[in-house]
């Protein structure tokens, strides 16, 4: 017998620190598989700012930098400019990327920085205990929106792919989900494409994963998937917003 599916080489043997059923792990695996697939393990560098994935530097089996909250796109810019022969990605949560790091992501995208950004949208601040994120859905209860997100008071969730799609420079922007095996297979293709474009130095590539936070949503992992399908996907529509490589 031959192994047909196994832990990719680009992951270390360190078990993830995520909660049971948290889909951060699926996103990690897809990235690791794409790095293996494109033979980049010796030239890859990832940047993970704070958020539940701040320990990602322990999980990916190539060079990694931890970054301050929201600053990963700037750190990745510094790495890419210093080492153009490296391939660089960031891995960011929604609080990180769409709140404190809004300036950094918009400007890295606008410069067409030749990096990949993997954006995990779980509609909440996971690490700090379930506070409202810029992506928290209308009326959704969190520890800092205990009566539900009041859109009159705090506005609507930010749709980051749509926002970045207004810029001229980005090369590839797609929103995928990790909520079913079929969706994960589609996500795998998108991640692979982003890493391929990265390898070819084409430009800024951006993948948003619609994900879950079972722990802070107070749902078991199965129910969390169902909740996200029913509530997040209508607001965060899946699809490819931009693919200059396919034009």
């Amino acid at each position: 017998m031959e192994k047909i599916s196994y832990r990719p080489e680009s992951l270390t043997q360190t078990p993830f620190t995520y909660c049971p059923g948290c889909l951060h792990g699926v996103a990690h695996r897809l990235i690791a598989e794409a790095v293996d697939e494109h033979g980049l393990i010796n030239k890859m560098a990832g940047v993970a700012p704070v958020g539940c994935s701040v320990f990602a530097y322990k999980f990916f089996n190539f060079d990694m930098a931890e970054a301050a909250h929201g600053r990963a796109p700037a750190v990745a810019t510094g790495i890419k400019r210093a080492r153009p022969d490296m391939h660089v990605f960031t891995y960011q949560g929604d609080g990180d990327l769409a709140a404190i790091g809004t300036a950094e992501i918009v400007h890295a995208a606008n410069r067409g920085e030749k990096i990949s950004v993997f954006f995990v949208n779980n509609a909440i601040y996971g690490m700090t205990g379930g506070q409202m994120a810029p992506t928290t859905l209308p009326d959704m209860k969190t520890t800092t929106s205990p009566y539900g997100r009041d859109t009159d008071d705090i506005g609507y969730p930010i749709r980051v792919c749509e926002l970045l799609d207004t810029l001229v420079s980005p090369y590839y922007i797609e929103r995928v989900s990790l909520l079913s095996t079929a969706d994960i297979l589609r996500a795998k293709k998108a991640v692979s494409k982003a890493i391929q474009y990265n390898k070819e130095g084409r430009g800024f590539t951006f993948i948003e994963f619609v994900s879950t936070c079972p722990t802070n949503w107070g749902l078991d992992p199965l129910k969390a998937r169902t909740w996200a399908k029913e509530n997040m996907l209508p607001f965060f529509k899946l699809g490819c917003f931009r693919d200059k490589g396919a034009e």
Partner: protein
Amino acid sequence: MARTTVDPKFCKGCGLCIEDCPKKILRFSENINDKGYHYAECFAQEECIACKICYITCPDVAITVEK
């Protein structure tokens, strides 16, 4: 012939693979791993069709599928 194995070192007993396996041949083990999770196990290897769905769905990359 196919074989699905779960590495207890990585499994957190989330149950996603158990739910998604089309042949329903995965279950929680009666044993627990070092972290105290009832990890998943395949109880009917002969029925496995090597569809890889369990591997794809597993957030902790705990599963190896062989064919």
